[in-house]
């Protein structure tokens, strides 16, 4: 479902923490409808790369063009652009003092200026899609990990974003709950949602990824279609990595 319309264009992205270079110049393009799966060893910079895309980490060099705007420009109101870039975290980060429904409607009501009724009915539709409509009035601490992550995904969807960023969405889950979260993500991918996913789920990468990217030591070491990527890896570090995880 990939189109030619470029949604995010990354040019020479660099990031260092206190002098330690984590990203050493990354160029990438995410087209509308892409499902980019980013893999790499721990400490390779893959999460940092993802977190730079919505400026949760401020890049120390390079540019990020989102829908044509350079969001690394300090004059740009990043908050407006973040509304269009949903993010799902490893630790879910639901708001524990708010109910599931309030978690979903807070953004639409306060930021998109929707009425409470409108936001509620849209939120209920989203909850039905992930099979959690009956938990609308529960608090996050009453849910299982898999339920929390499904709520976190629809919380991001409630803002009607143009792209969803997933930062290891299944890494904090018990094994039996990984499936339910991946199913939601697969459905979204098939519906044409543009996604960038940092994950260790190679099955997911193979099945729904339109492009798989291997980040190693702060640079993109290899990127290809899933078939080529897994069946015919070129980079020796990637070959080594795949032999360990597959």
């Amino acid at each position, binding site marked *: 479902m990939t189109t030619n319309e470029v949604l995010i264009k990354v040019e020479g992205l660099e990031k260092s923490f206190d002098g330690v270079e984590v990203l050493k110049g990354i160029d990438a393009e995410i087209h509308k409808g892409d499902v980019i799966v980013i893999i790499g060893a721990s400490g390779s910079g893959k999460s940092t790369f993802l977190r730079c895309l919505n400026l949760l980490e401020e890049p120390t060099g390079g540019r990020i063009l989102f829908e044509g705007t350079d969001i690394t420009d300090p004059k740009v109101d990043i908050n407006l652009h*973040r509304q269009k870039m949903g993010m799902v975290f490893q630790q879910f980060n639901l708001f524990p003092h708010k109910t599931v429904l309030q978690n979903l409607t807070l953004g639409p009501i306060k930021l998109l200026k929707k009425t409470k009724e409108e936001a509620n009915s849209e939120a209920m539709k989203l909850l039905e899609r992930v099979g959690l409509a009956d938990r609308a009035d529960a608090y996050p601490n009453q849910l299982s990990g898999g339920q929390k992550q499904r709520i976190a995904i629809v919380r991001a969807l409630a*803002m009607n974003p143009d792209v969803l960023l997933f930062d290891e969405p299944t890494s904090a889950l018990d094994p039996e709950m990984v499936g339910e979260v991946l199913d939601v993500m697969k459905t979204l991918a098939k519906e044409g949602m543009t996604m960038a996913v940092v994950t260790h789920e190679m099955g997911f990468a193979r099945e729904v990824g339109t492009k798989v990217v291997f980040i190693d030591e702060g640079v993109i070491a290899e990127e290809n279609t899933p078939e080529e990527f897994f069946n015919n890896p070129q980079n020796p570090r990637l070959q080594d990595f795949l032999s360990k995880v597959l």
Partner: protein
Amino acid sequence: MQEFFDSTRDNFISTFLVEDRWQQLLSGLGITLLITFFAVIIGIILGCLIAIVRSTYETNVKTKKCLTFGDYIIKVLNVICKIYLTIIRGTPVVVQLMIMYFIIFANSRDSILAAILSFGINSGAYVAEIIRSGIMSIDKGQFEASRSLGFNYKDTMIHIILPQAFKNVLPALGNEFIVLLKETSVAGYVAVQDLTYVANLIRSRTYEAFFPLITTAVIYLVLVMILTFFLGKLERRLRNSDH
């Protein structure tokens, strides 16, 4: 035996009934509550402002390399807050009270206003550190989740961080207000006719210490118990998202 009862009755009458002294105690209680109430409000407002300045500086400005104009303002405010905290926490509240009344209020001599201000300013320093600890106790992920939805720093604080921080520090905050209520008993140093001052006055008039002092102690105790009860209720209500 009879003698004991007679003298107790006489003491009771002279402490409470002669010259309508119970009314003096009552008005003393009123002044104690008045000072506590307004000092608590000043303390919360000051405390919140200082806590926000301090934690904004620590999470936002400290790590930045190029500072904007707003960042410089926060930096200056942070220094002012630090000086304030050092002075207020480093000196006794009675001394602060006397400085307020005899130096700053030298021309007006409004002792109740001086007491409200000095207890409020004093409490603000402690409330600030309590709330700051609450803000710092919130997981960084909460902040990131809110920012990733598109909320700015201010809205993130108001809707996400402060409500959770407040819940976490409520026991410590309640403790601070209990301390404040009892601390106002030194207001008599600047001739405020609060509960303790009036009781002591009655003791010096009647040469009878038992009834005025024990009554005063019991009144403070009851006030603290009432405060504790309502704080406990509030805590339970805020905790309903935890089960």
